[in-house]
């Protein structure tokens, strides 16, 4: 392997890893806040990708310009999912754990089916884009611009999430995750905090989805693969840890890129799951887990 190849592999791993990190951050935020795994996380990603493709076809605007619209739309969707489904699932009297698992699992199947019905099973992609298929190269290393833009946007969104966690609202989030019953004693409505947490988690995965749509084909099942990677990322980084999601996301991106290079591209996930199993055996709480 030449130095260029090494750099090329490292760079594509990093670019993809930053997207994985933001997808995982949304999942981790919701899990950390209320101990609920959102099994519909991949489907939220898929919805954001479709929204981007359809908006792009309808308006001809670049996906970068659609970003605020999709992010706000996904935020609202996240709040609605909490208000209409999750909040109710929290209040059930019997078998609460099972209900909480199956409510997001059912939501995932529903969204996937609805997408199949509405959009059909064909692969779609963004047609109009400033950066589409453009690359720049430094020496022998090729940098695809859509991927570069996507990873930078994800990094900015990630920084915004960290910034939010340092605000007073962020401390209210932390207080709610530490003792959801006690926040009522300081006048905090935990349902409001939970709903906003779902909104933020969905907006994060929505931003990742919009940027992903600039270079990745969309289909009703596209979410499953990314969701699987997100679960591994969250477990690797430590449940509920934002830093963990970032480090683990990049790590997984790199491992995937290296595996695809050394083995075959079709085996690119072997390395990621191997690392995951090793971490689970050596350090079950993940790299940055608090529990």
């Amino acid at each position, binding site marked *: 392997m030449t130095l260029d190849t090494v750099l090329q592999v490292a760079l594509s791993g990093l670019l993809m890893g930053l997207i994985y990190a933001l997808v995982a951050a949304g999942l981790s935020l919701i899990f950390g806040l209320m101990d609920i795994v959102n099994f519909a996380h991949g489907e939220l990603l898929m919805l954001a990708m479709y929204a981007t493709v359809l908006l792009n076809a309808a308006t001809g605007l670049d996906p970068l310009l659609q970003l605020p619209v999709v992010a706000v739309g996904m935020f609202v969707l996240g709040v609605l999912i909490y208000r209409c489904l999750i909040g109710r699932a929290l209040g059930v009297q019997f078998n609460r754990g099972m209900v909480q698992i199956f409510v997001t699992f059912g939501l995932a199947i529903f969204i996937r089916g609805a997408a199949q019905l509405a959009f059909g099973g064909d692969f779609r992609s963004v047609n109009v884009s400033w950066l589409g298929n453009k690359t720049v190269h430094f020496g022998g290393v090729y940098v695809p611009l859509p991927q570069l833009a996507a990873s930078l946007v994800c990094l900015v969104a990630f920084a915004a999430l960290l910034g939010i966690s340092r605000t*007073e609202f962020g*401390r*209210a989030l*932390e*207080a709610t995750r*530490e*003792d959801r*019953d*006690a*926040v*009522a*004693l*300081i*006048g*905090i*409505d*935990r349902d409001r905090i939970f709903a906003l947490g779902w909104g933020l988690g969905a907006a994060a995965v929505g931003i990742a989805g919009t940027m992903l749509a600039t270079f990745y084909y969309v289909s009703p099942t596209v979410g499953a693969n990314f969701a699987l990677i997100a679960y591994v990322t969250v477990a690797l980084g430590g449940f509920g840890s934002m830093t963990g999601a970032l480090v683990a996301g990049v790590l997984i991106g790199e491992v995937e890129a290296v595996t695809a290079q050394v083995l075959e591209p079709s085996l690119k996930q072997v390395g990621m799951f191997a690392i995951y199993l090793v971490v689970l055996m050596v350090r079950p709480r993940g790299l940055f887990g608090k529990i």
Partner: protein
Amino acid sequence: MPGDVILRLEDVSAAYKGLRALQGVSLEVARGEIVAVVGANGAGKSTLLRAISGQVSTGGVITFDGKSLARVPPHQITRMGVGLVPEGRRLFPRLSVEDNLRLGAYARRGEADRFKPLDTVFALFPRLKERLAQRAETLSGGEQQMLAIGRALMTQPRLLMLDEPSQGIAPKLVDDILAAVARIRTDLGVTVLLVEQRLGEALALADRAYVLQTGRVVMSGMAADIAADDGVRRAYLGL
């Protein structure tokens, strides 16, 4: 009987964890009073405070400042001016002392002087000021109790309810904390409803008291009279 009633319970019943914990409890607290609720373990004292703060569903009527608390969610009851220092303190363990206190004013975002009660809290509990940057979980039991009271004061309550503030605390600090409760009434004008196992201390601090036994009020009156009555103590309090 009190004149200006801030809290009134009429024929209140409640179940807690499937057990009937309160039956037909009626009780009044006047503005500016310290009222103690005493009784043996399991008499329903904690359930009484949970009922008032909206954490358990109840039958009967509970009014605060003339407004019914029926079906008002717990966080709204806090915002109406009912502060609770709960059993086990329920601090946010990984947050700093300062964040625990400041979050007490979270619901008042938009009010310019919402952090003003911090000075009051530091005057009452100077130790907290020395420990501002520490995580709440690193405090001693007594300091945690001070922080729990301070956090409740940050919500600017008109009625402060305390659930066993002396529990699990070094004897030396118990006096400090009960002295602070007295000052909260005299200096801040906050009405206090105190649930306490330590009969002597509670009755010495309170103006009036209610004796609970298996979920019913079996006696009420001036705290000094109840403290002086050995028969009451033997019959209801297991002493």
